[in-house]
């Protein structure tokens, strides 16, 4: 079941490539939409059959390279299932949004189908090498998306920077994985076996170095300060669909790695260096928000808010590694909040990036001061963007609040000062989003000169449906969160037990 979900997009991609170029551009996208919809339906079926109390489910193990301790091992639990569902939903939204795409559509669709398989594969992987392979392939796929469909020469430069930077990160990750492999007896890359064995317990400096390698690898992908500078150019020059996937799914691979690999496999070092992780998280929160506040480019600003939002995740997982002064409830809240934040950020920032794509499509620029009073011309666009902005700044009623409230309440006990400092992040994001809304959408109507004399058109259906759907799911999570939290909470309790051992 899980393998079908994972490889269905790749299968369709292969079929599309093998067939002659017979289809129209629109038909390719429609095939993609159908594939994504079927995949999402399968995940919904998976979700209904999922029992949160049972831990890892739908497992499948196949021998792959037994000599090197590598196997094909997949499975989902409460940490990965929400992200698998998010992946399917976001790819479907992006597929619908791409209906207008006319440029080399066959390759475009195939790349995104490939990326979907890679992303799903990463979240279900229960083997370090399998994880690493998908981790690397995601970089390759996204490189071609940015280089091929980004904004010209700058896009190619940004793609190269993205590729090299995150690739170095993945090499660090591989180094850490090999460190784990060598420490385990018998040697294995299997996540479940490694989690059970806890191979680096009591291995002091060696364990610290392995955590450093894995931590740096994941921190680059997440990204956290100071490893974040590949993100703004990659986002700014990527096509809207690519940005949405990059922010919505690819960034989660780093954050997910913390809860899936770093915390359960290296509990001792995680607890030992929890303070470092917390500091990195709190700095990312405040620094990301402050730098975002100073941006003059709408898309770049959203890119920096990603640093801010992922900073909350890092803060929470760091605080969950601090046993002193907390009880299990607080730590479980923090981890649940972190996973919820990953889902929430995918939904809301995905929508925001799609909306910034609309902005570029209409005005050919992201410069905030090029626009004014857009709400007069495009009321629907303004309304949806305003809702997305408020959702992103963590207003209750949307998923962001559910995530951040749990992160703050769960982290404050153990890391009071860092959490109190990080708290100002929600004020800064409020300030920066209000500033952007005021300058671009409200006030006296004024359009950039690049807009044709025919005027500016409001959201079309292919733009409204994906963005509003994403925000609607964020709203549902914000108002009735239990269906999601019921899945995550048992898994986060497991994680904190593993960390505490």
């Amino acid at each position: 079941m899980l393998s079908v979900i994972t490889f269905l997009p790749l299968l369709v991609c292969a079929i599309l490539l093998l067939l002659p170029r017979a289809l129209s551009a629109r038909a390719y996208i429609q095939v993609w939409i159908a594939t994504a919809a079927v995949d999402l339906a399968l995940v919904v079926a998976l979700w209904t059959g999922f029992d949160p109390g049972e831990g890892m489910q739908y497992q499948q193990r196949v021998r792959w390279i037994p000599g090197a301790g590598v196997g094909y091992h997949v499975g989902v639990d409460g940490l990965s299932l929400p992200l698998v569902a998010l992946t399917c939903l976001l790819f479907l939204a992006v597929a619908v949004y791409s209906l207008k795409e006319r440029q080399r559509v066959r390759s475009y669709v195939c790349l995104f189908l490939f990326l979907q398989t890679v992303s799903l594969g990463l979240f279900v992987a229960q083997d370090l090498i399998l994880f690493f392979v998908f981790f690397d392939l995601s970089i390759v796929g996204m490189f071609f998306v940015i280089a091929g469909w980004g904004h010209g020469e700058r896009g190619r430069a940004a793609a190269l920077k993205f590729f090299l930077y995150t690739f170095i990160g993945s090499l660090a990750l591989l180094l850490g994985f090999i460190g784990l492999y060598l420490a385990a007896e018998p040697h294995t890359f299997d996540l479940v076996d490694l989690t059970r064995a806890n191979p680096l317990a009591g291995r002091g400096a060696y364990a610290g170095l392995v955590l450093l390698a894995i931590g740096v690898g994941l921190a680059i992908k997440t990204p956290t300060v100071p490893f974040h500078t590949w993100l703004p150019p990659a986002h700014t020059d990527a096509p809207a669909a690519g940005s949405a996937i990059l922010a919505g799914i690819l960034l989660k691979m780093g954050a997910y790695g913390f809860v899936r690999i770093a915390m359960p496999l290296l509990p001792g070092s995680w607890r030992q260096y929890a303070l470092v992780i917390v500091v990195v998280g709190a700095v990312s929160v405040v620094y990301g928000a402050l730098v975002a506040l100073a941006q003059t480019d709408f898309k770049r600003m959203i890119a920096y808010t990603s640093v801010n939002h992922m900073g909350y995740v890092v803060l929470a997982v760091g605080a969950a590694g601090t046993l002193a002064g907390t009880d299990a409830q607080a730590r479980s809240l923090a981890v649940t909040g972190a996973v919820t934040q990953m889902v929430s950020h995918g939904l809301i920032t995905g929508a925001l990036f799609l909306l910034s794509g609309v902005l570029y499509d209409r005005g050919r620029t992201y410069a905030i001061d090029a626009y004014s009073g857009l709400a007069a011309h495009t009321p629907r666009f303004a309304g949806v963007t305003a809702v997305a902005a408020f959702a992103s700044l963590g207003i209750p009623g949307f998923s962001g609040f559910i995530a951040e409230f749990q992160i703050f309440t769960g982290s404050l006990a153990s890391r009071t000062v860092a959490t109190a400092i990080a708290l100002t992040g929600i004020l800064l994001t409020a300030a920066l989003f209000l500033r952007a809304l005021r300058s671009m959408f409200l006030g006296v109507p004024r359009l950039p000169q690049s807009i044709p004399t025919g005027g500016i058109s409001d959201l079309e259906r292919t733009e409204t449906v994906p963005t509003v759907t994403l925000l609607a799911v964020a709203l549902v999570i914000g108002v009735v969160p239990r269906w999601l939290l019921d899945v995550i909470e048992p898994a986060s309790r497991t994680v904190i037990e593993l960390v505490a051992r």
Partner: protein
Amino acid sequence: MIWLLISLPLGAGAVLGVTGTRCNRLAPALGVAVAVATLGVAVAAAVTRPQSSAPLFAGMRAGLAVDGLSAFMVVTVAAVTTAVLAFAAGEFGPDENRGRLFGLMLVFSGAMLVTVTATTLPLLLMAWEVMGATSWALIGYWWRRPERVRAADTAFLTTRTADLGLYLAAGAAVAGGAGSLDLRALPDAPSPWLHVITGGVVVAALGKSAQLPFSFWLSRAMQGPSPVSALLHSATMVAAGAYLLLRLHPLLAATGWAGPLVAWTGAVTALFLGVVAVAQRDLKQMLAASTSSQLGFMVLAAGSGGIAAGTTQLVAHAATKSGLFLAAGAWLTALGTKHLPALRGAARTYRLLGTAFTVGALTLAGLPPLSLWAAKDEVLASAYAESTGLYAVGLAAAAVAAVYSIKALWYVTQPLPDDPEAGYDTERDGTRRTARTTPAPLLVLTFAAAVLGVLALPGPASWLKRLVGAPDEPSPKPWEVGLSAGVAFAAAGLAWWWASRPAPVPSPAVRWARGWLHLERAAHTVVVRPVLRLAWALAVFDDRVVDGAVRQVARGGLATARIAGRVDDGIDAAVRQTARGGLAGARLAGRVDDGGIDAAVDAVAAGARGLGRAARRPQTGLLHQYYAQAALGFAVLVLIVLLVR
């Protein structure tokens, strides 16, 4: 039932807001209908006292309940909302986006209903923040005007700054073991978390209630439409802060320092913002400052343990202030101005508005036997029980309230000037009439404002005290009642006499008071500008230093590659040199081979050939020559033998 109470305005409001202009014709009617239905449910809930809860987070529930205090609040909120929406139905023409206005107003009051019925902190915080966000959308309702949107931003950001206190309190409560975040469990948290919780709650409440030093946002909030002001300044938003302090009084009492701090903040705000109100020349600004000041009395009551007193003050003020704002709004619509000198005689032109405003202003002035006089005496009685200083400041604030109310009343009741039109239409084009929907809500609110003082009569007062769970609260003694009445009358008389004198040139102190104590400027200087500057500096740092370091590393990598390339070239050159050397060697060897060895071989060969040729010469084949040769050879041999021997 309690879920119906909150989902009705929230759900209907959200739907109305989303439809926007599409059902513009129906929006006011639908909005009022929903408000009336909500009022009905609220009254029923106040009688039946429902409660309910649902799981929210791990170990935390979202609880809702209507108890004594909440019962008062829900009815007040629903009633004021209904009146204000009924008024707004006539104020907003079909060319405005009525769906958005009515939808947002319903969501706004729905959020207030959740705030006053929530029994756990997460749910309260959710409603609290939604209310703030909705206030942003309402204040910035006329979004084409940049200064209005700016005002909305100021209001939201200021209140959200204070809201951080609630997040902090929630985290501290979990840390302190009150993991359920039940409001009743908060006072049991151990120190030091108890102090963090209390501090957070106090800051959040003071911010929402526009107490010092947060008061300035309320001035900016005046940029919103009048019905929004009427709702925001009376039963919702600002009232939420006072409500929270009244609700969490046990928490304030548990710390020892929080009660006096809150009481003094309230008293000082009541006095200073009262002075600010006196200095205003704009009717809505004056009413805004007076809101801050009147809320100071509620906060004073909460800090000094006067739960019933604070509640009475809250309810009475909600009715009074919403009525006054509606009257001011009606004048603004009709005459296009809210400038006090321009409104001279307005009460005479618009009799009904004038009457309602007069009653409202007299109530606000605290004149007996109207409601706020009675409510304020209850508050002052609590303050007196706490400390005489508090009582004195509160009494002074009451006198100031009389001064600003009477000042406003003086302007509007003056005879019309010779050319009243000159001052009109400064804000917008007035309609010169009042809408058909204006009188009913205005009269209802004004009537309520006048008579709600019965809550302070001994019988109802003790009922109220039992209801809110504070049966031992002090009641005002006869001398206190008399003193406050005397002070109010004296101040009112003084204000009337003072107002008729020509206005002196504003001194710096007056300008200071007129500018709301320059609080906003201070906030900009101390907080906003440094943060923005820091943001810019960090953005530059991020570009130049952080990314610069990455670029340096990349450049370093390139340079290393280049050096490696050069080294590689060197190696290659060496190889080529070696090859060339080899070649040269080969060539040399070739040459040696050619010129030396081969030549020597050739020479030997040539020598041999020469010798051969030479050897061939004697062999002529002639016998006589052979003979001669043998003879010569023999002679040589003989010669050698002879010589050797």
